[in-house]
């Protein structure tokens, strides 16, 4: 029983990271119709910078903020290249993000090398209903929940958020009322970058980061996001949490490391079911 609770909370912590990556994918896809394959790179870059800043004596909080800011700026940059030119098709933009994701490997290796990095998070072990788990997992959950609440508020209660939702809902009507949909695309990429960065910064103390950690993040994040047709943040949150818990349970009771396989099976199942129902993912998202 205490094992189960431990796995559940750990799974929720890991899942929260996936959910953040997923919500970044969703934020970008809703507005631009681009599946951003560079999403994992935001997390890796943010985590690497945070590790360096902490190493240089920058205090916690500020170092993490620096990492998230780098994620946001990288998001803006990727957005500028991928959707900055008017008339770029989402398919072309997708390939561009894939290329930029690979380019990020080179940058990361040049700056930080190819060895795994980590840094201490919340120290110690927490006791929860008899279960013992790393206290840092609780921080991940404690940060992620308000971030999602904040996003819900931003998208429905602020004008820039409404404008982003408007672009997602009806791009043509957005143009009719004078919203610059290209700029909104850049804003979405910036937001996606910050969310990806936050995922990396939060999870690195419990899962060390290497330049190619983005693969696991993007697979899990995409699997979570695709549950909601890449357009529904709340479903992406639920999907991320579910995936985190499923993987932790699989690893805990099944033994071995099937984490990525669990995500891949889920993702493929969802995509095949959706494709059989309504056509390709891009179509269901409309």
């Amino acid at each position: 029983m205490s094992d189960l609770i431990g796995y559940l909370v750990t799974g929720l912590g890991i899942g929260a990271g996936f959910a953040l990556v997923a919500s970044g994918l969703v934020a970008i896809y809703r507005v631009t119709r681009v599946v951003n394959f560079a999403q994992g790179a935001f997390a890796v870059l943010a985590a690497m910078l945070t590790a360096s800043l902490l190493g240089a004596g920058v205090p916690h909080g500020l170092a993490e903020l620096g990492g998230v800011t780098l994620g946001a700026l990288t998001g803006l940059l990727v957005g500028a290249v991928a959707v900055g030119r008017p008339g770029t098709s989402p398919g072309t933009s997708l390939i561009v993000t894939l290329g930029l994701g690979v380019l990020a490997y080179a940058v990361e290796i040049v700056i930080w090398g190819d060895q795994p990095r980590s840094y201490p998070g919340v120290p110690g072990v927490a006791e929860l209903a008899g279960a013992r788990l790393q206290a840092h997992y609780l921080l991940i959950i404690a940060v992620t929940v308000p971030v999602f609440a904040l996003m819900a508020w931003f998208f429905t209660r602020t004008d820039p958020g409404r404008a982003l939702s408007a672009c997602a809902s009806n791009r043509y009507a957005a143009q009719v009322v004078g919203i610059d949909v290209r700029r909104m695309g850049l804003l979405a990429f910036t937001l996606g970058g910050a969310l990806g960065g936050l995922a990396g910064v939060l999870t690195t103390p419990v899962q060390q980061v290497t330049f190619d950690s983005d693969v696991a993040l993007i697979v899990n994040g995409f699997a979570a996001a695709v549950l909601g047709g890449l357009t529904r943040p709340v479903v992406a949150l639920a999907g991320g949490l579910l995936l985190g818990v499923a993987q932790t349970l699989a690893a805990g009771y099944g033994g071995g490391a099937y984490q990525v396989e669990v995500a891949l099976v889920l993702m493929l199942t969802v995509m095949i079911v959706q494709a059989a129902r309504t056509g390709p993912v891009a179509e269901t998202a409309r």
Partner: protein
Amino acid sequence: MTAVVETRDLTVRYAGATALDGVDLTVHDHEMVALIGANGAGKSTLVKALSGLLRPDSGTITVDGRLAQVPEGREMFGDLTVDDNLRLGGWRNGRGGRDTTAIYDLLPDLAGIRTRRAGALSGGQQQMVAIGRALMARPDVLVVDELSLGLAPLIVTTLVGHLRALNTGRGLAVLLIEQNARLALDLCDRAYVLEAGRIALHGRAADLARDPRVAAAYLGGHIEVTR
């Protein structure tokens, strides 16, 4: 009378096909102008060009003041509430110009549905939202692309009443594109007939309504002979 909208020799092409060919059209202050024409004549292309969503290949467009459009098909933000749809209509005005209360005074029917999802509304309600959203831009001229299409006669009467009130009460100029030519010619002061991208006829709406060419092509073939 000054012109709020004036096009001169306006030409718009889509990858080869010419959709508008040398169009001269004027809408004056306080005026209601109808634009009628068959499917594919180029009416919506003109709306897009006037709104700046399409760049003309040649010719000029002069808009003196602000132009807002009610787009063909109503184009709701379907996932957003009525109030958010309206609010976004004031996007260009900046934060200070996005208060929606005045719209509910103008279009009271919207007050009761302000928190509903626009995508879940009836066609008539959506058209009302589309008009309210356009009014949020505080326009000097309103371009309505297909007012009555697919709507029940009762709601069309209501919408026409609103347009008339806005025109007489607030001096809003209106360019009305309308499938129902009789409705458009009854409502408006002047009218243009667009055929295959060219202005085929224009003049006082009452005169055009009596023109046998208009009657044959757009009024169901009946010439209403008076006396």
